[in-house]
């Protein structure tokens, strides 16, 4: 089983979704491993319209089963963690490229340029 990813971004259309597997899961596990010590009380609030983050469902122990990544914060059942430099978000954005249209990707990429 892989890790399912939903890019929460659209209103009328269905959100893009895809599955990570193999080396991508290992890489994601490493990225997540680097943030577990960085607990944060930040609660970024996604806007109504536009990019609202990535939702991940994982079947890979010991990865949390549900993860939301938005604006440099990773939300899990065990708390919120700081994703410094939006590394995980940028990494997920890179993966999104194959699953979204060019205009959506361009928009996403422009958002990731901000800290």
């Amino acid at each position, binding site marked *: 089983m892989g890790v*399912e990813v*939903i890019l*929460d*971004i*659209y*209103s*009328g*259309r*269905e*959100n893009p979704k895809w599955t990570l597997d193999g080396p991508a899961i290992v890489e994601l596990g490493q990225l997540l491993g680097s943030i577990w010590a960085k607990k944060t*009380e*930040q*609660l970024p*609030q996604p*806007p*109504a*319209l*536009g990019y*609202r983050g990535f*939702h*991940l*469902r994982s079947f890979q122990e010991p990865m949390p*089963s*549900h993860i*939301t990544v938005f604006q440099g914060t990773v*939300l*899990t*059942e*065990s*708390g*919120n963690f700081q994703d410094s430099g939006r590394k995980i978000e940028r990494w997920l954005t890179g993966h999104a490229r194959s699953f979204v*249209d060019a*205009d*959506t990707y361009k*928009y996403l990429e422009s958002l990731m340029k901000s800290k």
Partner: protein
Amino acid sequence: MATIVTLDIFSGRPNPTWVLSETDSKKLVERINAVETVTAQKPSGAMGGLGYRGFLLNHTPHSVQTHAAMHIHEGIIDKGINEANLISRDREIESFLLSTAPKAVHDDVKTLVAAEIKGNLTAAPEVFRQPPHAICPKCKAKDAPPYNPAKWNIPTVQPYNNCYNYANDHITNTFAQPGRAHGKMYTALTCASVNPAAIADGLVNSPNFARPLGPGKGWYVALVIWPGVDYHWYRQDNVGCWSHKPGSTAARNTDNSGKKITDPKTCDRGPYITFCTYMITNRRVVIS
């Protein structure tokens, strides 16, 4: 299970949201299961209003749903339209949920909610004061639906119905697409393509939302476009302000700046920068 808690309290600012730990989720389920008294009452917070309106419980999009989405306020556990509501006069569940709020929730807000739960509310602390109210325009459509997010923000409805479902006030659980019910779905994400698709479903263009619409004549909606990427719909509720449901997220009555929507043409729409047109929909419109 991942339970998302939203403290429904603000008007101009986003409401605080957090994810319950597994331990707290279990404690919550135990508390809810212990309540046995059925009530026909609805929490007053379900109808909007200002100030503390209760706690909304939802799940992350992927989570296994061991309990339904709920609204808990005034001791009432509102499980949505398919289940009976429960009531617990001591409001212990609300106190428990408040105790799970992270540090990021301002102490003044916590104090205010705690006071409300205990029934000894005095003056609202500074942090809680509401921004000036937007004055809603008069609603001219007799059929305009009420703003009732409790109907939409439940797990059997919210993920499967989008802005088009919401604007037409029609739950299809199909993430309805303009024109699809009539074999005339849009082919591009432009006003010129989505607008005729909606007309094929039975909607009618309108230059504004000022003309009186009698009973049976429907209500006003508005179509906007994120050029080449997506479309979005708003609807005018019977209070005169507008509301919307962005994709599979919760229905709401505020824009991207957290302000009440007096006119979708001028509100903060994020990347949906093109305003196409106002339209009129009605109960006979067929969408899928």
